[in-house]
């Protein structure tokens, strides 16, 4: 049971790394608390449902679609909202209020558009274009579970974990191997100094905001597979969990989020195995523990002066 919980936790955790990484990127660059993060995740899930139900395509096609659409949405939202926030006396506090309002609006509009009922996608729909490759690598049946360490796991979890790893690597490459990424890290490190040295902080921030929302939407594509179904109200819980993971890894350190997600995933599955009725308290318990024991997070170097 422990091995199963550990492997399931790793797969689950990698997905949560993807859930949290966009949120951390936005916070790291702009010091904006995006309380609508989970709602963008939920919208990504609805894109996947649309791609699968309306177009009859593999939901994997929703990954690039959701990313591109929400990068554009992010750019538009950035120029609409963020410069005004940054010009205020207390942008962090105001961002909480603003994005909470945005979260409510998104949820209400989605409810009006799609109703309140659960929506899902058949689990064998995900990755059907790769079914042959999957059978070749893992064996088993094309629409059956995947065997790992002699135990079976949902194929959708393995696909989701694989996409998460790719996305995290791409974020890493973006941050550490591209010029825009270097500028992004400069803004994350010292926003005022970056501005003073002539970096176009607004442009860098807008791109980071777009990528943050795009990553949330990509994570959303896998939500119906990780949680069985999605409703317009899904965003709230996802936001709370995302914050727990981000704080766990380290605020402002997107790569730390990858570690935070894995720690969260494994902890969740182990608690669910041995103390199941307490499992949903985990995000809060982890938050309290990390704030008490290591306020800078697992990979944090210092405590941010908020």
């Amino acid at each position: 049971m422990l091995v199963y919980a550990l492997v399931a936790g790793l797969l689950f955790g990698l997905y949560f790394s993807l859930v949290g990484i966009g949120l951390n990127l936005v916070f790291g660059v702009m010091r904006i608390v995006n309380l609508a993060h989970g709602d963008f995740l939920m919208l990504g899930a609805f894109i996947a449902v649309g791609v699968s139900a309306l177009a009859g395509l593999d939901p994997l096609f929703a990954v690039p679609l959701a990313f591109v659409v929400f990068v554009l949405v992010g750019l538009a939202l950035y120029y609409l909202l963020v410069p005004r926030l940054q010009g205020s006396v207390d942008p962090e506090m105001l961002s909480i209020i603003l994005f909470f309002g945005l979260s409510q609006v998104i949820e209400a509009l989605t409810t009006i558009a799609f109703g309140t009922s659960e929506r899902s996608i058949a689990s064998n729909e995900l990755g059907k274009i790769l079914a042959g490759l999957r059978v070749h690598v893992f064996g088993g049946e094309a629409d059956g579970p995947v065997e790992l360490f002699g135990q079976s796991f949902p194929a959708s979890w393995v696909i989701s974990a694989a996409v998460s790893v790719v996305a995290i690597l791409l974020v890493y490459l973006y941050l550490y191997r591209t010029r825009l990424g270097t500028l992004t890290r400069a803004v994350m490190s010292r926003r005022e100094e970056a501005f003073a040295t002539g970096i176009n902080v607004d442009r860098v921030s807008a791109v980071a905001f777009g990528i943050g929302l795009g990553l949330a939407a990509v994570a959303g594509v896998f939500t119906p597979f990780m949680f069985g179904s999605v409703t317009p109200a899904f965003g709230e819980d996802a936001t709370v969990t995302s914050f727990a993971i981000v704080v766990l890894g380290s605020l402002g350190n997107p790569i730390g989020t990858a570690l935070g997600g894995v720690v969260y995933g494994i902890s969740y599955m182990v608690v669910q195995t041995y103390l199941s009725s307490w499992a949903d308290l985990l995000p809060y318990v982890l938050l309290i523990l990390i704030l008490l024991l290591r306020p800078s997070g697992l990979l944090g170097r210092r405590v941010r002066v908020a």
Partner: protein
Amino acid sequence: MLGKMAAALAAGLMFATPVLAADPPSEIKIGTLYASSGRFASISMPVYSALKLWAEQKNAEGGVYVKAFDKKIPIKLVSYDDQSNTATASTLYNQLVTQDKVDLLVADSGSVLTAPAVAIARDHKMFLFDQTGTGASFFSKDNPYIALMADPVSTIWPKPVADFLTQDGPKLGIKRIALLYSTNEFTGTQANAVRKFIQDAKAPVEIVYDQGVPTETSNYTVIINNIRAKRPDAVIHLGYAPNDIAFLRNVNEVGAKFKWLFCIYPGLETELLEKNVGVKGLQHVFTYVPPSELDYPVNFGMKMPEFRALWNKTFSDGKVEFGFNAVAGYTTALVLEKTLSVANSLDQMELRRAVFSLSGKLKTLDGTFALDETGGQIGELTPLGQLEPDGKGGLKFVAVYPHDVATGKPVYPRP
């Protein structure tokens, strides 16, 4: 002498003349809550939509007959969105009672969102029309301010499940039972009841896995693996619709083959579960047989086909599914209507008397409305059924227990 005669005449006239009711109100205010978002939206919205459908239907006919005023009076549905939040629900129930001063108080759907209403109604001495909140703790001899409208109390709801397992189960080879439940009033009470029925039966069956999980649980893969490790012959999962969706999907995704598997919502919200789990994933699953499959004799309100046709016409966009909760909302509406037609006043205790006077006599599309002394619903039955392929790519219900309502034999083990 003359004065005494006049006084006696006046007194006589006073007793001879019937007490005149107060002026009839321009509308009867029915206060209720619904959840348009959050965890309970999918069970709350069908209930509320049915209630609204009834109110619109009655208002189009000029209102409902109110015996206290001997005339038809339009209904005003005063409703607020609690967003599946119990704290918000508490505030809004208070508002309905103290600010809106509604004539009749109707709870939101489900035990979680009914729980705050029970205490508030009792404090304000308002009679609570409890739609589907079946938690056992709501009903006690010292609380006269509640009655359950549209499904049985959770303590008796799972009796056919437990009786099947203890009486027919051993003959089929069922000896080891796994019990997984969400830790809320609705399913927690059912789990307690199952446990007690099984223990009291002293049958050769044992519960080898017994775990509660938070109602918010949406991922069961590890739990399913843990259950599998206990090698049960029968698995009972008690959760709300989102729990059942996630659980059944995970069962199929990890290729778990439970020989006997029970869930609540494949029966109660079949359309919703079919959409989210798929026909294949629901095949041979045991569940409660919904009233739509039992064709109860009706002496008040629409019959099932008529109601279903009206529902499909009204909610043709498919955003609110037809299912048990739609029936429950309409059943509540029928009880409200019948209560107003027999109550002598709108006094809350008189409303209670009127509701209880319907017990055993009112037969709706949901079965016989019958209450025990605490206000718990005991008339509407929940036979155990199994979902079988109908040969046309869909599913059909086969009632398997109790034997007197059975329409077929159970398939065991599930293929």
